[in-house]
Each structure stands twice: as structure tokens, then as C-alpha cells.
């Protein structure tokens, strides 16, 4: 087995696979490590993505990636008031299992080497510099050498911390999630539903994302400061009992979505972070797939150039970090502030906002409009929000 590479990427989800594909295309030798036995499994994701976002990366979107095309959204307030929105933009609910496997296959077709059942357990140093990764393969430690390591190891990332980057998420700002894929349920398969309020999912929201004519990813996230005795799984069982009484779950998964303040430093000497490992999901919506791909494309290019030039210092890797903070990173910072504001809304605030939104035309009910409506009608909230934006 070959053990020397230019770039070693830990984690073969969308962020890692796309970084690998981009770097390999630019001429670097790339090793892509996956701790699980299969790329793309288990799917810890609601699988929703905007068409516009995917088209930023892919000229053509293979139909096999798409479980459902979504044309509408429904926001349900604590008192049950439902606000339907039909924006111009379409969305998709993906088959992440197929999507992730295809991305990894594309990386391999481009020349990257993929190794599954390979759990990274630490960095290797030589002359005070990062020089590779120690990996547990079938219970045995194996060392892979390379001057540049990229952490794409997801929400549970440790790679950054091994290199001294502070990536731990404050627990109050972690949304703790549970999701079931329910079958045989009565839904509108073209509409995604969101439920907000203390009764559904305190500090987060519940979602229904259609996967088929009569099946959907049904889940929720509870803010880490609200969990107490009742687990997110228990909250989800309560939600399902009310929304889909008697339904059966085909799968149940757990997971965490950081909704914390975005981190600034995502590169250091010989090391980069991408995707959830770099806390790149949107802190308001929890969406992370498109951001991971955008970051991966940028990281892959910068990484390939760095190894080709023989300089993998933080300075040489900085164009990636700068591009991130100029682009999607900027949106995440704004979204974090919006999240802080929205989470201060009481159930009564949310109910009143929903009533007001019913007066806005259906095609104008964008997230921004929802927020604007809330503020215009509740000047008291404006003061709260102003505090957050001014600080």
C-alpha cells in the first residue's frame, strides 16, 4: 500500500470528497480517508438543498441524486397558524447516500486514493512540522506521510484541535437533533414544512422534508441549553405522535448541528479544515452541503498550489481562508446574528408574526421577508435585534 501523498484528507463526506477531487484535478496526489466502512452511510442529514446552490457547483445535476423536487415551504407557528410560501426558487431533497458515494467516486476517477474503515487517530510530526496522519486500519495503526493534512472530519472533527485550532462548539450553541424517515404518511410531496416554538422544538425547529410520495425525513433540533431531562429523540417522538400519529419509522438517526458563532481560523501550518469540521454550515438554517462544496473547491485548489510550490505554511494556505470569509463565511456571520435574534422570539411573538405574514403575497414570503415582517410589527423585537447587530 502506498503511504506517501501530497495531501491527506480526513473524512470522505461532500467536503472531503470535493476537496480531493479538486486537488487531484490540479495535479496533487491525494489520499482520502473514511472511518466508516461505506461512504455516505449513515445519512445524518435532512438532505435539503437549493437548486441554485447545487448549480453553483454542478453544470448538470444527475436525476439519481434527487429524491424530490420542492416548490413550496410551510412555516407552522406554535398556535398552528400555517404560512405557505411559493418562492421562485426550487429546492431538492437529495439521496445523500447516492450523492456522497458519487462525489467520492468522482474524486477517485480524478486520481485520488480512497481508503475506507480508516479512522484517523493523530497527526504525525517531523522537524516540528505536520508530516502525516496515523490511522487505525482494522485495529492496526498505520502511518501515512504527507506535508498537508485537510480535516473534513465532520461535526465530530478533532483534526483541527490536534493542530491547535479551537473548534470546540459551546454546548448551548449546538442543536442536538434526531430524525426519522417515516413511510406511509399523508404529506404534500412538493412542500417542506418547518415547525417553530417551545412546544415543538425549543431553541431549534422541527422539519418535514419529503423523500417520496408518502415518505419524508421528519426531524428536529433542540438547542443545547434546552435539552434537560427530555432528549431530542423524546421531543421527536412527541412531534411524530401529533403530526403523523401511528406512523412507522424506516430509519432513526441522531446528530448535531453547530449554530455557533463562525470560527475565524481554518488554516494553520500544514493543515486546513473544510465543511462541518470548519463549522461552515449556516447557523440559522443548519444547511451545510453547498457551503461544504464551495469550500472544498476553494480548499482543493489552494492546497494543490501549495504542495506544488513546496510551501504549505499558513501564509500559503491563507487564500482559502480569505475566500471563505469573503464569500459564504460572510453570509454565515449575518445568519448567526439573525439566529440570535430569532431565538429570542417568544411563542406569542412567533404567532403574531405568522398572522402578519398571511397578509404578505405567497411568492414574497422569503426568509428575509419573514424577518422583516416580524420586526416591523413588533418594534420591541427591533430593540433586541438592534442590540445584536450593533455589538
Amino acid at each position, binding site marked *: 500500500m502506498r503511504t506517501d501523498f501530497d495531501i491527506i484528507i480526513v473524512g470522505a463526506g461532500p467536503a472531503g470528497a470535493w476537496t480531493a477531487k479538486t486537488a487531484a484535478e490540479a495535479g496533487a496526489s491525494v489520499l482520502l480517508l473514511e*472511518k*466508516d*466502512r461505506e461512504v455516505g452511510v*449513515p445519512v*445524518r442529514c435532512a438532505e435539503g438543498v437549493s437548486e441554485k446552490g447545487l448549480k453553483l457547483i454542478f453544470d448538470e445535476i444527475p436525476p439519481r441524486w434527487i429524491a424530490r423536487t420542492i416548490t413550496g415551504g410551510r412555516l407552522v407557528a406554535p398556535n398552528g397558524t400555517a404560512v405557505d410560501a411559493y418562492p421562485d426558487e426550487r429546492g431538492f431533497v437529495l439521496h445523500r447516500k447516492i450523492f456522497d458515494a458519487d462525489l467520492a467516486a468522482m474524486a477517485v476517477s480524478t486520481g485520488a486514493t480512497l481508503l475506507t*474503515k480508516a*479512522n484517523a*487517530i493523530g497527526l504525525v510530526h517531523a522537524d516540528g512540522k505536520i508530516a502525516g496522519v496515523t490511522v*487505525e486500519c482494522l485495529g492496526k495503526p498505520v502511518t501515512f506521510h504527507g506535508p498537508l493534512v485537510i480535516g473534513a472530519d*465532520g*461535526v*465530530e*472533527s*478533532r483534526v483541527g*484541535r490536534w493542530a491547535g485550532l479551537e*473548534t*470546540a*462548539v*459551546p*454546548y448551548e450553541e*449546538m442543536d*442536538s*437533533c*434526531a430524525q426519522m424517515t417515516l413511510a406511509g404518511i399523508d404529506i404534500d410531496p412538493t412542500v417542506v414544512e418547518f415547525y417553530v416554538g417551545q412546544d415543538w422544538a425549543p431553541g431549534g425547529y422541527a422539519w418535514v422534508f419529503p423523500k417520496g410520495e408518502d415518505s419524508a425525513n421528519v426531524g428536529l433540533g433542540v438547542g*443545547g*441549553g434546552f*435539552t434537560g431531562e427530555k*432528549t*431530542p*429523540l*423524546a421531543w421527536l417522538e412527541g412531534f411524530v405522535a401529533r403530526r403523523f400519529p401511528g406512523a412507522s419509522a424506516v430509519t*432513526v*438517526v*441522531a*446528530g*448535531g448541528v*453547530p449554530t455557533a458563532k463562525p470560527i475565524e481560523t481554518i488554516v494553520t501550518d500544514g493543515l486546513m479544515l473544510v465543511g462541518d469540521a470548519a463549522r461552515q454550515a449556516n447557523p440559522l438554517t443548519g444547511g451545510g452541503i453547498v457551503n461544504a462544496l464551495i469550500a472544498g473547491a476553494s480548499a482543493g485548489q489552494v492546497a494543490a498550489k501549495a504542495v506544488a510550490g513546496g510551501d504549505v505554511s499558513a501564509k500559503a494556505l491563507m487564500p482559502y481562508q480569505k475566500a471563505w470569509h469573503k464569500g459564504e463565511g460572510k453570509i454565515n456571520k449575518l445568519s448567526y446574528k439573525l439566529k440570535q435574534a430569532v431565538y429570542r422570539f417568544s411563542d406569542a411573538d412567533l404567532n403574531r408574526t405568522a398572522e402578519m405574514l398571511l397578509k404578505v403575497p405567497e411568492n414574497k414570503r422569503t426568509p428575509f421577508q419573514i424577518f422583516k415582517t416580524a420586526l416591523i410589527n413588533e418594534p420591541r423585537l427591533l430593540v433586541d435585534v438592534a442590540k445584536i447587530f450593533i455589538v
Partner: protein
Amino acid sequence: MSLSIDYDRKRCDFCGTCVAVCPADAIRLDEADLSIDEDRCVACMACVAVCPLGALKEKA
């Protein structure tokens, strides 16, 4: 120092949410295993707060 957290492997989904919030980097996750390094654990209970399935509990 003995570990102040009870871990129930049967409840665990190996999602890694606990790893992300551990300020001491004391939790190691494998494909279907989790271990807490008792020498590193600072008993802050952040992992207990975010475990989606109740697999981590404060020791009584």
C-alpha cells in the same frame, strides 16, 4: 480521577455531537464505538447536555 459520566453503548448512535462540544477533547469516536478518556474529562457535562439519545448521563 474516576469518570463522572455513564455511557450507554446500546443507546449511542455514534453521531459525534458529544465530541464536538467536549472542551477537553476527551472523547474518541470510532465507526461504532465511543470512549471517554477519564484523565482528560473535566466533568463539565457538555456532552450530557447535547446527546440526542440520552446515551451519556451524569453518574449518580
